[in-house]
């Protein structure tokens, strides 16, 4: 089964039908009944023998006829759905695209303190009293002192017999990640462009979730102004207007500063746009924010440029000029759905 899913992965990736079928932890993948070809009759004219009342010339009902003369021996053209867990899907994606596992930054420096009950102590609050151990200690003491009578086995714990659970504080290296999706929703981004972004983010999400235990997502949309929205709005919104990319970057910067201190978080900003920014001044402003804040903070900054009929596609060129050979910046041009797969590989292929 996995093999078949993998074979069709490209097909699934470019269609986006999976997202709609997403359950809590799994996706139900529609597998078309895979027919093994063989020599068989072309059906429609064949006809056959049936059973039941009716006059000659009377239709016998569409669906039943599909099965032909042998009851249900021929499989119909129905679709089989297979539940695949998101982890497994990510794994298939990873294997197929040969994605390297991500090495989280700062695993050594970022620690969380966590209490774990690991030991036993003779002191502690009553609420943590360990009954079994207490009983054992009392029993031991009674046997040692000869008070214990097998015929009348009454155990009475004393103060000293009491045992309590004790905890140790451990520091656990922590890898947290936040994905910040930014999308240009200006008038030039059509439905098709948004669909591409939607599909691409689904797969990015799937992969990154498999890499980090703790992952947060934030969605930012922008035209001339930017705002933080929920996932639903992000994927369904229709806006129009001009484009000021800097507004999104500014907002992303604020979000990070407020919620996700870069020293503790792996930060993945993804920005999708058709590359049409409003004027050179704004672009300069973008470069400044990127250069000074976003880039140093992030594991990697990804910019995906979706081709649209209206966009000039200038922005990616500007980025390329501003950050030549900077491997914290990954750029990808997505001209059609078929290129989503390649784009994913570009974004995730560096293992950062």
């Amino acid at each position: 089964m996995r093999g078949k899913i993998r074979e069709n992965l490209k097909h699934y990736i470019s269609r986006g039908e999976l997202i709609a079928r997403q359950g809590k932890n799994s996706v139900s993948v529609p597998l078309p009944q895979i027919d093994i070809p063989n020599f068989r009759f072309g059906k429609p004219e064949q006809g056959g023998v049936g059973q039941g009342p009716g006059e000659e010339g009377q239709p016998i009902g569409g669906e039943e006829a599909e099965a032909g003369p042998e009851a249900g021996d021929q499989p119909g053209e129905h679709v089989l759905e297979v539940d695949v867990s998101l982890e497994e899907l990510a794994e298939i994606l990873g294997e197929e695209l040969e994605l390297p596992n991500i090495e989280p930054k700062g695993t050594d420096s970022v620690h969380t303190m966590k209490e774990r009950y690991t030991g036993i102590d003779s002191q502690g609050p009553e609420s943590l009293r360990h009954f079994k151990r207490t009983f054992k200690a009392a029993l031991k003491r009674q046997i040692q002192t000869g008070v214990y009578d097998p015929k009348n086995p009454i155990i009475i714990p004393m103060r000293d017999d009491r045992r309590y659970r004790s905890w140790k504080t451990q520091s656990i290296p922590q890898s947290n990640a936040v994905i910040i999706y930014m999308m240009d929703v200006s008038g030039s981004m059509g439905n098709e462009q948004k669909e591409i972004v939607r599909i691409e983010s689904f797969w990015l999400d799937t992969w990154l979730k498999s890499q980090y235990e703790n992952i947060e997502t934030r969605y930012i949309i922008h035209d001339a102004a930017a705002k933080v929205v929920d996932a639903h709005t992000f994927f369904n919104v229709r806006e129009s207007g001009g484009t000021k990319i800097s507004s999104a970057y500014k907002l992303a910067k604020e979000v990070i500063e407020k919620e996700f201190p870069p020293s503790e978080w792996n930060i993945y900003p993804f920005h999708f746009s058709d590359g049409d920014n409003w004027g050179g001044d704004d672009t300069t402003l973008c470069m400044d924010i990127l250069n000074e804040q976003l880039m140093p903070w992030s594991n990697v900054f990804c910019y995906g440029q979706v081709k649209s009929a209206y966009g000039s596609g200038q922005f990616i060129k500007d980025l390329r000029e501003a950050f030549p050979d900077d491997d914290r910046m990954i750029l990808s041009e997505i001209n059609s759905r078929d290129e989503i797969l390649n784009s994913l590989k570009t974004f995730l292929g560096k293992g950062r």
Partner: protein
Amino acid sequence: MFENRQLTPRLEELRTQIRAYAVDFGLDFFEVIYELVDYDEMNMIASYGGFPTRYPHWRFGMQFEELQKSYSYGLSKIYELVINNDPCYAYLMRSNPEVDQKLVMSHVYGHSDFFKNNYWFSKTNRKMVDEMANHAVRVRRHIDKYGLDEVEQFIDVCLSLENLVDPHAPYFGEHKTSSEESREEQRLAATGTKFRTKPYMEEFVNPPQVLAAEKEVRLKELDREERFPAKPQRDVLTFLINHAPLRHWQRDVLEIIRDEAYYFAPQGMTKIMNEGWASFWHSKIMTTKALDSTEIIDYADHHSGTMGTRPGVLNPYKVGIELFRDIEERWNTGRFGPEYDACDDYSKRQSWDLKLGLGREKIFEVRKIYNDITFIDEYLTPEFCNQSQLFTYKFDRHAGNYVIDSREFKSIKEKLLDSLSNMGRPVINVDDGNFKNRGDLHMTHQYQGVPLKLDYARATLENIHKIWSRGVHLETEVDGKRKLLSYNGSRHEEKVLG
């Protein structure tokens, strides 16, 4: 891995009872081993075609998913599962109520009797459970050596040819060896024509050079006569196994696929009879012996569920059981033979009863020597067609759906036999393994009025090409014209034959 599959003491008790009833009725079966399974085990086993161990292949997983889904949505449920093997293995669903278990057990004894006694099953391997496990080991060994993907892809190719076997082949001896031998003899015996003469004249009357030249000509003629294969061969799989340039493991896999196809073939050839026979006996055993009065409603519900008919589908259980009952009735009352056939008085025919009581004996004989085709051919009567409301249907191009075509006995019988012949699949022969004298493979579809599904035919040709590794050709009829479909490894061609 699995829970204990042994029958509970209560079920064991029921089994002993029902077995005794079956023996009393004269059923002669392989001993049946029942195993008690959960629904997911049942689906697992069913997706393996009833066998506990099969070679690994994705299609089993696919079938399992499908069964599992349709069971959990309440769309379908497998009642009985029984394997033709000695002893027979049958599975009972743990969650079924007692009345269902009784029904299934009775039904299974019917199947087991059929497996053991029907002629068409006589050549099947009765240790197939072991054999399947051996196949699994062989395939796994190839997988270990050559990789899962490679072996699985090859199995896909083989499965595409799975139905290119000759279901009747096991019942004839092997022709091939004898004809090859006889050709060899002819070849050895080939000499020039000698004239009778005196010894001293020998050299002059029969000069050795001339004799040698004549022998040469004979041998060449023999070679030319020797077609390859000698005559059209319906068992394409065996032909490929013997003659295709396959690697050792590939040949082994192809043999496995062929052996399994031959094992399953009789079940396709006797679907109506087999199910009819088993249903006949579960109904007999249940209604006359095993059924408790409190269970009658449930029994009737489930029995009618299996017997249910829908307009476009012929239910083999229903047709089978009714035909067996009809035969029993006819032989009990003597409604057969020339006198009965000659009688055209309706009321006389209706009340015809010679009190022969031969029915039971007759149906046991029928279950022994017939298969679906001969069964229908021999015992389908106009009265039966009428009573069972059989009809033929056809595709109405204008309406775009299937409509009832006819209720005439002749056309029903024809259509039914048509659909049963070669298990409803096209008959394809290999007739030249050296087509165009360049090692191409030429096959012919025996056209009987129904065209092939062309896209599938082309894909299948591609798969045959993967095995034969030279050009492959299929002669068939499309839209009333003889056509030759060819595939040479890179593209398809289609040529109208004159």
